C-alpha cells in the first residue's frame, strides 16, 4: 500500500496546474465562485466553457481514461483523479459532465456499433453538450415513477410528457432521455433510453431560477416529439438497467474535496489578514477550531474519494456503490458546512455577493445558497443514506 505519485505523474500534475492557472486568467469573473453556475448561468460563461472544452479535447484530457478503441489512452485511474482534482481546484469549466461523465460510458456499454461511431466522437472532440432528462414533477427520488411516454409508431417514437430540474437544458445540444415505452408496464419495467437532439420540434425548455436568480435548472415539455428508432440506446423496454449503470459511472466526487481545499486556503488567508475587535480573526479560538475541523473533513473525504475511484478502477462496483454514495453525501454536506462556517466567521460581511465590501468577492455567500442544491441534485442526501444502509450495512429493505 502506498500513496506515492511516480515522477511521470508528478510531471503530469504540474502540466495540468500550469495549464489551468494560465487559462483561468482569462475566465469571466463568475468563475471566481463556482464553475457550474458560471458555465450555465450566462452567455460569457458558456462561451468560455466551450472554448475550454475544445482545448481540453485537443489535449485528450477528459477522455484519457477511455478505452483505446474509442480514442482514449486507458490512463490509470490515478491520472484521472489528478486531473479531476486540478480541474476542480481551479474552478475550471470545459467538461460536459453529462456527456463525458454519464452518457459516453453508457454508450460504450449499451449502444450498438452504429450509435457508438455516430455519438461518441463528437463528445470526445468537445463539440456537443448534453443534459440529463430523468426527473419529473412526480418522479424525483422515486425515479421509477416517471410517466413521460415514448410510444412506438412505425420507425420512430412519439414522446409526450414533462421533465424537470434539467441542468443546462437551455444550453445543451442534446439530451439523454428516460421515458416509458410500454405504458402497460409499471415502475422500472417498460422504460427506454434515447439520444435526443434539443433542436427538434415539440421540445420546449422553460427556466427554473435558483434562489439567487441564477438560471441552471429547467423544465422540459414534450409535445408529440418524434425520435427516430436508431436513437434508442439499448433494448426496448429495458432502459432501467443501463440507467442504473449510468448512475454509477465515476462517482468518486474527488473534485468536491479539491474545490473545498481551495476555499480553505482562501479562508485561511482571510483570517490571517482581517481584524475585528482589535485582533486578527485567527486569534479567536472558535475560528481556529472551525478551520481545523474543515481541514480534517476535507482530508478524510478526499481519502474516501480516492478509495472509491480505486475500487471502480478495479471494476469493483459493488464496494464502490456504497463509497460513491458516501463520498457524494459527505462532500456536499462538507460544502454546506464550509459555507456556514465561512459566512459565520465573516460576520456581517458574510451576506454580501460581489461587492467591494465582500470578503473573497462573495464566494462564500454564493456557496451558502448554492450548497443547498447540491444536497438534492444527483440523488438527495436521504437517498444516498438509504443506499449506504442497504448496500453498505446490509440492512433489509421493506417493500
Amino acid at each position, binding site marked *: *500500500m*502506498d*500513496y*506515492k*505519485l511516480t515522477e511521470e*505523474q508528478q510531471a503530469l500534475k504540474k502540466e495540468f496546474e500550469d495549464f489551468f492557472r494560465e487559462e483561468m486568467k482569462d475566465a469571466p469573473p463568475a468563475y471566481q465562485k463556482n464553475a457550474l453556475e458560471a458555465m450555465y448561468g450566462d452567455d460569457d460563461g458558456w462561451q468560455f466553457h466551450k472554448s475550454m472544452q475544445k482545448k481540453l479535447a485537443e489535449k485528450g484530457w477528459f477522455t484519457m481514461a477511455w478505452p483505446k478503441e474509442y480514442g482514449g489512452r486507458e490512463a490509470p485511474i*490515478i491520472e484521472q483523479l489528478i486531473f479531476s482534482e486540478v480541474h476542480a481546484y481551479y474552478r475550471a469549466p470545459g467538461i460536459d459532465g453529462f456527456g463525458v461523465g454519464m452518457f459516453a460510458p453508457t454508450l460504450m456499454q449499451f449502444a450498438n456499433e452504429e450509435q457508438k461511431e455516430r455519438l461518441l466522437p463528437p463528445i470526445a472532440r468537445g463539440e456537443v453538450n448534453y443534459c440529463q432528462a430523468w426527473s419529473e414533477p412526480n418522479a424525483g427520488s422515486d425515479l421509477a415513477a416517471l410517466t413521460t411516454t415514448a410510444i412506438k409508431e412505425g420507425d420512430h417514437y412519439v414522446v409526450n410528457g414533462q421533465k424537470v430540474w434539467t441542468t443546462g437544458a437551455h444550453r445543451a445540444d442534446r439530451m439523454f432521455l428516460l421515458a416509458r415505452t410500454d405504458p402497460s408496464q409499471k415502475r422500472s419495467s417498460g422504460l427506454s433510453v434515447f439520444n435526443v437532439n434539443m433542436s427538434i420540434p415539440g421540445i420546449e425548455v422553460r427556466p427554473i431560477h435558483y434562489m439567487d436568480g441564477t438560471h441552471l435548472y429547467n423544465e422540459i415539455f414534450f409535445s408529440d416529439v418524434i425520435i427516430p428508432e436508431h436513437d434508442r440506446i439499448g433494448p426496448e423496454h429495458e432502459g432501467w438497467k443501463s440507467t442504473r449503470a449510468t448512475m454509477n459511472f465515476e462517482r468518486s466526487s474527488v473534485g468536491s474535496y479539491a474545490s473545498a*481545499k481551495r476555499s*480553505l*486556503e482562501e479562508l*485561511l488567508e482571510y483570517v*490571517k489578514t482581517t481584524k475585528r475587535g482589535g485582533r486578527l480573526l*485567527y486569534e479567536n479560538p472558535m475560528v*481556529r*477550531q472551525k*478551520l*481545523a*475541523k474543515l*481541514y*480534517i*473533513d*476535507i*482530508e*478524510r*473525504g478526499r*481519502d*474516501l474519494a*480516492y*478509495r472509491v475511484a*480505486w475500487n471502480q478502477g478495479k471494476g469493483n462496483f459493488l464496494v464502490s456503490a*456504497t*463509497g460513491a454514495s*458516501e463520498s457524494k*453525501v*459527505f462532500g456536499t454536506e462538507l460544502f454546506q458546512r464550509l459555507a456556514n462556517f465561512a459566512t459565520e466567521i465573516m460576520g456581517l460581511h458574510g451576506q454580501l455577493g460581489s461587492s467591494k465590501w465582500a470578503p473573497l468577492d462573495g464566494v462564500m455567500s454564493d456557496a451558502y445558497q448554492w450548497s443547498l442544491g447540491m444536497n438534492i441534485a444527483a440523488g438527495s442526501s*436521504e437517498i*444516498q*443514506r*438509504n443506499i*449506504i*444502509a*442497504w448496500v*453498505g*450495512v*446490509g*440492512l*433489509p*429493505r*421493506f417493500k
Partner: protein
Amino acid sequence: MNLDFTSEHEMLKDAATRFLTKECPYARVKELEESQDGYSPELWQKTAELGWLGLLFPEEYGGYAGQFVDMVIIQEAIGRAVYPSPFFSTILQCGLTILEGGTEDQKKDLLPQIAEGSLIMALAQYEEDGSYYPQDINLKAEAQGDDYILSGTKLFVMDANVAHKLIVAAKTDNEEVTLFLVDANDPNVAISKMPTIGKDNNCEVIFNDVKVPKANIIGSPGNGKETLEKMNAKAAVAKAAEIVGGCKACIDITAEYAKQREQYGKPIGGFQVIQHYMANMLLEYDTTYNYLYRVACMIDEGEDFARDASALKACANEVYKFISERAAQIHGGIGTTREGDIGLFYRKAKSCEYMCGDTDFHYEEVFARLLEQGPM
C-alpha cells in the same frame, strides 16, 4: 500509488482477528477489566510469541522491522477485540520513546526484553493539571552528584501497576524536560490505580525523593520534549487505529442486532430512522478508516505527518464517541447494561479520547500547523 493491502498485510489481519476472537472474547474482556492487574500475563506471552511486541523494532534490537501499516493492522484488531493489555503503554509509548530518543545501549538493553514479553513499561508524563503540553511538566529532578532526585506526582500513567520500569518526564534545574528510566518497584515510588470510565490501568504514581543514576537518562538531558512529541505523533496514529477497530466492531455488532431484533413484527433495521443512523455511522467510519491508512503510509514513506496525525486523532476521537453512542442507542435497554457488549465500546471511546491528546488539543495542533504551512 497502490491502495491494496499486500498478501502479507492480509495474512497479518486474518491472524490477528482469529487470535483475538478465540483468546479474548468480550466476556473475557469484562473479567480482565475487573481484575487488579487488568490484563492476562498468559495472553501477553502468547502475544509476544505472535511477534507483535517487537513488530516495530529493527532486527538488531530483537524486532521484526515491520512497517507502521503493520502496527495499524494490529491496533485495529486490538480495538475490535477491546483487548486489555499493556501493549499500548509498553510498545507504543515506551518502546517508541526509547527508539526515538534512547541511547544505543538503552535500545540494545531494553527493546529485546520488550519484544520477548519479559519487560512491561509505563510512561509517566501527565501531572495534576492534566496538561498534554510537555512545557507544563513540573515534576522535579534535582541533580545530586551522579544521581538525580525525583519528587512529585504523575497521573494517568497507564499500566504503571503492572510495569517493571517507568519512563518519567521531569524538569531538571535548567528547566528542561528530561526523561528518566525508573524501577517501578523502587520503595520510594507509590503506585495506585485510578477509577476510570474505561476500567483500565490508569494510575497515580507518587515519587518520594527517588534516586535515579544519571546513566538512566533516556538519551541526553533536555531532549525530553522533542522525544515525547515524536513518540506522541506516532502513538496518536496507533491509537486512532485502535479506535477505528472499535468503530468497526460497533457497526458489525449493531448491524447484526438490527437485522435480528424485531418490533412491530419487523426487524428494526428495516426502519428508515435506524438505517440513517447506521448510514451515518458507516460514513464516519469509512472516511476515518481511509484517512488512517493514508497517514500510516505517510509515516512509512518518511513524510512529515505531524499535522495529519493530529487531524486523524481529533477526528477518530469524535467518530468513536458518535458511533458507539448510536450503537448503544440502537440496542435499546440492553445497550446500557454490563451484560451487553456494546457498552464496552462506549466506555472505551471515552478513554481512547484522552490518550495522546484529546480533541481540542489536536484541533489546536492542526490549526497551528495550517497557519504555518497552509493546507496543501
